[in-house]
């Protein structure tokens, strides 16, 4: 396969992102597109963990919360530069992930689900309770993100920033999957024992991917905080974790295109349902159940298996 042909998907995504502003009628739609991109980037990282490494995280919103609040607190109360704060948030999230992951990944099955769930809830509770720093349940404002004297503001500017980050993440994720690291990940999803026998350091790979996904979640938490200009503890709560996981599952576990599709569909859904209070939750739940029963592999892999050339390229 030629180098050019291999990059087709990247070019298609770039094309879509370039042309999209032509059809976006107003700032409301820009806003939705931006939220889709933010979710897509988090979901790409989470999917590496759930889909490729076969590990489930029920507390990913906790990491998003760490990033968001680092960007909210450090610049306004300690005078840090926003970029430095963003980096610090990501570093804190990665460190927490690494500390928790080491002992947990020696265990199997439900244990990571339990541990991440506990971790996510603890982070959410800390954010709600430390009102002196975080503003408590009411949330707090976030200073705008300035880069070298230039301040990112307005939906249109943010759109291009996120389009660039999304494109980069997509490219990075695709490359990662086809690297030796990615092959090792897929191998240990297939059979941990077999990959261990072949010399894959199972625990190390799982820890690395978990830390990586926490890192990205935190970065996007910071971006969300700066974009919206305000954070509330909801960003770190259990329901947000479930939303993120739903995006992975509906789009397709272990599918990079699936991550994008899942994020786009499930970001649009609450907008469509927001007038029916309560039904939003019911719809989310039903989609999860139906999706797991009828296409446990998710939308993209199921459709690809039915219509596409089966094999390598449909990942």
């Amino acid at each position, binding site marked *: 396969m030629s180098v050019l042909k291999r990059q087709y998907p990247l070019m298609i995504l770039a094309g879509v992102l370039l042309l999209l502003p032509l059809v976006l009628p107003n700032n409301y739609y820009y806003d939705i597109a931006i939220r889709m991109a933010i979710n897509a980037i988090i979901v790409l990282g989470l999917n590496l963990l759930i889909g490729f490494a076969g590990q489930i995280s029920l507390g990913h919103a906790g990491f998003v919360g760490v990033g968001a609040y680092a960007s909210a607190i450090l610049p306004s109360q300690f005078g840090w530069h926003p970029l430095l704060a963003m980096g610090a948030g990501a570093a804190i999230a990665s460190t927490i992930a690494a500390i928790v992951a080491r002992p*947990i990944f020696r265990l*199997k099955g439900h244990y990571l689900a339990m541990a991440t769930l*506990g971790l996510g*809830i603890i982070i959410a*509770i800390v954010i709600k309770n430390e009102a002196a720093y975080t503003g408590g349940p009411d949330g707090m404002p976030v200073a705008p993100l300035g880069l070298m004297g230039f301040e990112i503001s307005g939906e249109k500017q943010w759109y291009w920033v996120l389009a660039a980050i999304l494109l980069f993440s997509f490219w990075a994720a695709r490359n990662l999957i086809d690297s030796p690291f990615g092959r090792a990940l897929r191998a240990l999803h297939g059979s941990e024992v077999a990959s261990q026998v072949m010399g894959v350091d199972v625990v190390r790979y799982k820890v690395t991917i978990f830390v990586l996904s926490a890192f990205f979640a935190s970065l996007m938490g910071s971006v969300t905080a700066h974009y919206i200009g305000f954070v509330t503890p909801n960003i770190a709560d259990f329901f947000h974790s479930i939303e993120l996981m739903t995006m992975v599952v509906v789009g397709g576990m272990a599918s990079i295109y699936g991550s994008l599709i899942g994020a786009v569909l499930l970001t649009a859904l609450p907008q469509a349902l927001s007038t029916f209070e309560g039904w939003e939750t*019911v719809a989310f739940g039903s989609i*999860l*159940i139906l999706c*797991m029963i009828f296409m446990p592999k998710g939308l993209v892999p199921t459709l690809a298996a039915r219509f596409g050339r089966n094999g390598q390229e449909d990942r």
Partner: protein
Amino acid sequence: MFSQFLQFLFSGITVGATYALAALGFTLIYNASNVINFAQGEFIMLGGMLAFYFMQSGLSLPLALLLAIAIPAVVGVLFEKLAIEPARDAEVVTLIIITIGASLVIRGLIQIWLGKGAHSYPAFSGSEPIQIGGATLLPQSLWVLGITALVVVALWYFFSRTLAGKAILATSCNPLAAQLVGINTQWVLLVSFALSAALGAIGGVLLTPITLTSYDVGIMLGLKGFVAVVVGGLGSGLGAVVGGLLVGIIEAMAAGYISSAYKDAIPFILILFILFFMPRGIFGAQVTERV
């Protein structure tokens, strides 16, 4: 000083009993199907909310309670039939996600039907506190403890003395072997889900006069029941009961002596500790995995 300790102990045991019932529900379903049912907490909420609804619509206390326990049991059966059975051979992750989906559906429907407000109903036998050693104990707490104890004894009898109970135990040991000796494992699954939903609902019905209920209490209660399971050791019935009481007591003590704001965080800090240092819990079996 001592009276204060006693006070915390009373409130800890009362909530702990509810966690124990939820934990028993988790254990039942886990043993029968290897599924961790994240919708368990919704059955606690369902019990409380339905009891409130029936009492408000004028039914007598016993009838309202009976319905509030029977209906969640039916919901449990439907849940198994409609959501778990069609995905029987799926991976663990898939099944966990299905139960999370079910919990969202139940919670959403109750929110639409009964609204977002917090509800309660009068305690079963007055609310005149009883004085013991300087601490006060609500009569409703005695109901919680008494009925939980009854339920635990009944469950013990069911599993160790009756054919149906032993069939369930056999299925949890080895489904295929159970099927070969003529046990209807399909039936076992249904009974486990019904029973576990009813256990959760009993907890909800008993606790609501003390703590109030609303459409969203299920998550926290369920998760704490789940912590109790992990503390006691996944799959152990005795562990579930001890774990539940322990989580309740530790939570109450920490709220009283350390910080009430962090009360809800305590069980989850506990779960991380347990997973780090004794991942099989207090009563969990040692298992060696075959490859």
